[in-house]
């Protein structure tokens, strides 16, 4: 990917969106002489689940950590729930929940004790027992944090992130290391949080996860957001020709067509019965994503 390096003093093109949960204009973060984030613009609406995709080193985690108030920035304007994270105080922190990639650390406390302590930092927390129920850890209420399995630990991390009743929840690679069943359980947890009105910013390496959960996805490469779209439309996926494949005369045949229904009808007329090995495929989110980040699938 070739990107022209943006001048740091680049003027924001449009003002920050005051109604957005997260609004970013021209965000720049430098490490040494490298721009890890290089003029990034982003708006996340209230109530939406937004997935940030991108290869390692693209600036995903750096961007999220600027939004979370963990890192300072070198340029640009940022508003998270209407507040600049660089000056966000306890009041602001009370409205956001953070599930870190690294988790919340080891503990000798039980799950219920950890949640009860965490709830005490917030003005209007959820009931810790209800949160345990929500993440499916009720039977582990009296188990110590460090005795949990990997997947249970991650669910405890999520519980700690939501016990303060945040309006905005950051989830940094929440399901890494989950088995398929645990991921499906986690997805339904996220959907129930959405129903409670929580805005979520999710980073993930799993494209099926982004497709399953996100209202919109953004792809970040080389420190810039290259596209934002609903999962079905990303990379022109919605308009991309479908690929019809079948077997004829012992050979595999494929045809890319913008009108797959008509094409298949034509095929059906040519064959007496079933069209052998018929398949119609659209490019997957993974196909368009890999294309966008400049690796051929």
């Amino acid at each position, binding site marked *: 990917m070739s990107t022209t390096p943006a001048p740091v003093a680049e003027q924001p093109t449009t003002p920050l969106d005051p109604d957005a949960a997260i609004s970013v204009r021209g965000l720049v973060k430098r*490490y040494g002489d490298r721009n890890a984030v290089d003029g990034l613009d982003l708006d996340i609406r209230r109530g939406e689940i937004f997935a940030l995709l991108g290869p390692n080193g693209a600036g995903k985690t*750096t961007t999220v950590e600027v939004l*979370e*108030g*963990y*890192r300072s920035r070198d340029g640009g304007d940022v508003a998270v*729930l*209407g507040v600049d994270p660089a000056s966000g105080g*306890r*009041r602001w*922190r*009370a409205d956001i929940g*953070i599930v*870190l990639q*690294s*988790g*919340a*650390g*080891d*503990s*000798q*406390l039980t799950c219920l*004790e950890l949640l009860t*302590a*965490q709830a*005490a*930092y*917030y*003005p*209007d927390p959820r009931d810790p027992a209800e949160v345990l129920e929500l993440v499916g850890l009720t039977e582990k209420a009296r188990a*110590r944090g460090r005795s949990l399995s990997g997947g249970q630990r991650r669910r405890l991390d999520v519980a*700690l992130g939501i016990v*303060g009743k945040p309006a905005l929840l950051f989830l940094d690679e929440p399901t890494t290391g989950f088995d398929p069943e645990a991921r499906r359980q986690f997805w339904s947890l996220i959907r129930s949080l959405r129903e409670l009105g929580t805005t979520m910013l999710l980073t993930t390496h799993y494209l099926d996860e982004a497709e399953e959960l996100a209202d919109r996805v953004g792809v970040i490469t080389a420190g810039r957001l290259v596209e934002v779209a609903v999962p079905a439309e990303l990379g022109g996926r919605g308009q991309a020709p479908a690929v019809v494949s079948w077997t004829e005369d012992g050979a595999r045949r494929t045809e890319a067509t913008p009108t797959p229904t008509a094409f298949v009808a034509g095929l059906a007329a040519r064959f007496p019965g079933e069209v052998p090995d018929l398949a119609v495929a659209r490019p997957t989110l993974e196909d368009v994503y890999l294309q966008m980040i400049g690796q051929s699938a």
Partner: protein
Amino acid sequence: MTAPTTRLPALARVYRVRAGVELKEFFRQRESVVFTLMFPVILLVVFGAVLDYDIGGGVSFTQYFMAGVIAAGILGASLQNMAIGIATERSDGTLKHLSGTPMPKSAYFIGKIVQVFAVTVATIVILLLVGVVLYGIDLPSGTQWLTFLWVALLGSAACTLLGIAVSSLAKNGRSASATVTPFALVLQFISGVFFRFDQIPTWMQTIASVFPLKWMAQGLRSVFLPEQLALSEPAGSWELGRVALVLLAWVVIGLGLCVMTFRWRDKADG
């Protein structure tokens, strides 16, 4: 957007919660209880049984060792405990997690201070009990208790702050333990804990005099030993004024180092 109508929880309540968390974290962890709390007690039991000789004036070495082992116990409960504990919490993400919540930052340190205080008091009480029951140690009397109190308070404050500062130098809990534990052990050898301070080579005495442990042990000797033994101190007296001054200086230095070096996140984390 709804206007914030609910108020942030009161500081006192968060402090209480953090104190509870820190006490549970310490007393539920077998390693910390054994190494920090029981190690000085084991030392007292072993040394009391082996080195029970007369150091002059009908005073046993165990009476002398009592002062030293309490000083070492305070060092373990504060400097070693803080350096290893906080380095661990920094590298495993606990600190980063906490700094992402609305918990007031002061609450973290209040919790640690309560933990050090509880562990220190527990260590001292157990040591005194074991000393009296097993070895007939003479307990301090009158104003000696007052000296005991200020030496323990100042020493533990200085060592807690130093421990918090040292935690920032370590990569993780294990590396903190690998550097702080041998350092504390050497310090105990040259500061008059295991051996009589006046029988240690002068150059070692000089090195020991830089650090707080020597002064804590010396101040506590004035509490546990009869007045006439002050004459066998290298200085010929307990030097209580200087004890207070050096410990106070370490409190100031330790505080400065903490403010300059404390980090809520791991170095490897950018």
